[in-house]
C-alpha cells in the first residue's frame, strides 16, 4: 500500500510538472496579452509531431531543441498575422479565434500525420527504470522532471534578471505605463507569445516520448493546465507552478483509491479553492479578476 501510494505520488508529481510546463506558457500569454490561448494544445501536439518527423535526422536531442523552436516560429507568425489584431478588444474575440485555430491544428495534424497514434523514439538508456526497487520510475520520467525544472528555473531567471523579463513583468502590471516609457509593446507581446509557445512545443516533445502522439493529445492536456492556472491564481506564475504540482499529486493520489475519479478530483479541488480563496492560492486580488 505504501509502495502504491509512493508510486502514485511520484507519478502525480511528474504529471504535475508536465502540467506546469504547459500552464506556464498559457499563463505568460494570459498575463501580458489577456489572450486565453485555446490553441495552446494544438501547438503542443505540433511540437510533438515535429519531433517525430525530425528525430530520424537530428536524433532525439536535436529534435528536443529544434521542434519547440519551429513551433515557436509558427506561433510568432500566427501572432503577427491574426492574434495581434485582437489585443485590446473584448477577450471573447481572441478566445474564439484561438478556439478556431485549435480546430484547424487538430485537423491539420490528423491530415499530415494520420489519426493513428505515433511514438517519439527516445534514447534507450532513458527507457530503463532507475533500479529494480524503483521500477516505476524510468530515467525518462526523471529526465522529464529535469527538463521541466531547468525550463521553469530558466523562465524565472529570465523574468527576474533580463531586460525582457523585467519588461514582461512590468507589462503584466501596467502595460500602458510600460508603453509610455518607450518600450515597443507590440514586440514585447510577440516575444512573450513566442516564449509561451516554445514551452508548449517543449511539452509536446516530452509528452510524445512518454505517452506517444495523437492528434487530440493537446486538447486533452488543455483542461488540466486551465485548472492549474485557476487553482494557483490567474496572474501569478508561481501560482501556476504550485497549482500544476498540486493537481498532479491530487489526481495521482485519487487514482489509488478511486481511479475513475482521478479527473474529477481536479475539478473538486478547483471548486474548493474558489470557495475558500476565490483569487486562487497565490493570486492577488484586483489583478486579472
Amino acid at each position, binding site marked *: 500500500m505504501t509502495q502504491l501510494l509512493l508510486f502514485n505520488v511520484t507519478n502525480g508529481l511528474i504529471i504535475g510538472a508536465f502540467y506546469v510546463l504547459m500552464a506556464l506558457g498559457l499563463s505568460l500569454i*494570459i498575463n501580458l496579452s*489577456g489572450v*486565453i490561448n485555446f490553441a495552446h494544445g494544438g501547438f503542443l501536439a505540433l511540437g510533438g509531431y515535429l519531433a517525430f518527423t525530425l528525430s530520424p535526422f537530428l536524433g532525439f536531442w536535436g529534435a528536443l531543441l529544434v521542434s519547440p523552436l519551429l513551433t515557436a516560429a509558427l506561433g510568432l507568425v500566427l501572432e503577427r498575422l*491574426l492574434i495581434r*489584431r*485582437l489585443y485590446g*478588444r*473584448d*477577450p*471573447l*474575440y*481572441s*478566445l*474564439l*479565434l484561438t*478556439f*478556431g*485555430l*485549435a*480546430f*484547424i*491544428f*487538430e*485537423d*491539420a495534424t490528423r*491530415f499530415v500525420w494520420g489519426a493513428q497514434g505515433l511514438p517519439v523514439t527516445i534514447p534507450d538508456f532513458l527507457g530503463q527504470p532507475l533500479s529494480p526497487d524503483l521500477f516505476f520510475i524510468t530515467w525518462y520520467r526523471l529526465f522529464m522532471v529535469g527538463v521541466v525544472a531547468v525550463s521553469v528555473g530558466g523562465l524565472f531567471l529570465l523574468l527576474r534578471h533580463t531586460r525582457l523579463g523585467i519588461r514582461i513583468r512590468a507589462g503584466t502590471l501596467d502595460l500602458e505605463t510600460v508603453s509610455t516609457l518607450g518600450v515597443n509593446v507590440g514586440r514585447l507581446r510577440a516575444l512573450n507569445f513566442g516564449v509561451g509557445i516554445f514551452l508548449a512545443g517543449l511539452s509536446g516533445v516530452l509528452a510524445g516520448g512518454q505517452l506517444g502522439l495523437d492528434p487530440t493529445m493537446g486538447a486533452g492536456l488543455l*483542461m488540466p493546465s*486551465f*485548472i492549474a*492556472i*485557476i487553482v494557483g491564481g*490567474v496572474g501569478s506564475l508561481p501560482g501556476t507552478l504550485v497549482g500544476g504540482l498540486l493537481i498532479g499529486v491530487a489526481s495521482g493520489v485519487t487514482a489509488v483509491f478511486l481511479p*475513475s*475519479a482521478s*479527473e*474529477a478530483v481536479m*475539478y473538486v479541488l*478547483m*471548486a474548493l479553492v*474558489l*470557495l475558500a480563496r*476565490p483569487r486562487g492560492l497565490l493570486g492577488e486580488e484586483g489583478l*486579472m*479578476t
Partner: protein
Amino acid sequence: MSAAGRTGAPVPLAIWVLLLLAPFWLGPVGGYTALGTRVLVLGLAAMSLNLLLGFTGVLSFGHAAWFGLGAYGAGLALKFVALSTPLALLLGTLTGGLAGALLGALIVHRRGIYFAMVTIAFGQVFYYIAYRWNSLTGGDDGLRGFARQDITLGPWHLDIAGNGTAFYYFVLTCFAVAVGLMALLLRSPFGRTLLAIRENERRARFLGIPVELHIWIAFALSCVFISFAGALYALLNNFADPNNLHYSLSGDLVIMAVLGGMRSFWGPLLGAAVFVVLQDYVSSLTTNWMSFVGLLFVLVVLFFPRGLLGILRRQGTA
C-alpha cells in the same frame, strides 16, 4: 429589448411567419423538417447564452455543460422515471438549471478572462462524469434506450413521437414560450439593470445595484433556458451523448451568437440557422468539418465581429 425595438415590428413578424411555415418551404429549398427543429433548438440555446454574453456582458464559455445536463436529465427521466414528455422536459430543465445556479454562485465574483476560464473548466466536469459513469450514462456511447412520447391532453392527442412535423410544431411552441419569457425578462427593470451592468459595471455598482446578485440570477436563468433547449435536443435525437456537454459545443454556441449578432435579440437564432445549415451541408461534402468550422471561427472574428444583424443594422442607419 432595444434591438428588436429599433428594427421595428416587421423583422420579428417575418421571423415568426418563416418559422410557422418552415415545414412547407424547407423541403422545396432542399432542407428537411428535422433540420428546422435543430435550428430552433440550437437557436434557443444560443439565445439563452446570449442573455449573458450579449445582454449582461459576461463571457461564459462553458454553456454546453448546462445544455448537456438538460439533455441527460430528460433522457434519464424518460428511461427511468416515467414515459412522459412534459416530465422529461421539466426534469431536464431542473437538472441543468439547478446545477448552473449552484456553480454560478461560486463564480459570479470573477470577471472577464477569469470568468471565461472558470466556466470552461467547470463545464468539463460534467463531460467527464458522463464519460466515466458508464452504468448510468452509457459512457462514450451515449445514453440510449429512451424515446419521446406522444402527448395526450384531454381530447387532443399529439403524435410527436412518430410525426416529425408535429414534433416541429411542438418544439416551435416551446421555443415561442421560452423566447417570449426572455423578451419579457429583458424588458423588465431587471433586464434593464443587466444592460446597465454590461455598459458600465462600476457605475451600476455606485448606483447601489447588487451587481453580483444580478449576474448570478442572470446566469441561473440562462442555465434554465439552455437546459430546456438541451432537454428538447435529447427529445429530438432520442439520444444524448457526452459531446452535448463538451466545451467544443460551448464554442459552437458562442460562435452562433457572435455570427448572428450578439447585441441583437434575434441574432443568435440567425447565427444558429447559418451554422446548422453549413454544418449539414459541409459535413456531407468533406470529412474535414473541423477545419471548416475552425476557419469559420477565424473569419467571423476577423471580419464579422458585430455579426450579420450588426452589419445589416449598420447599413440601415448609414
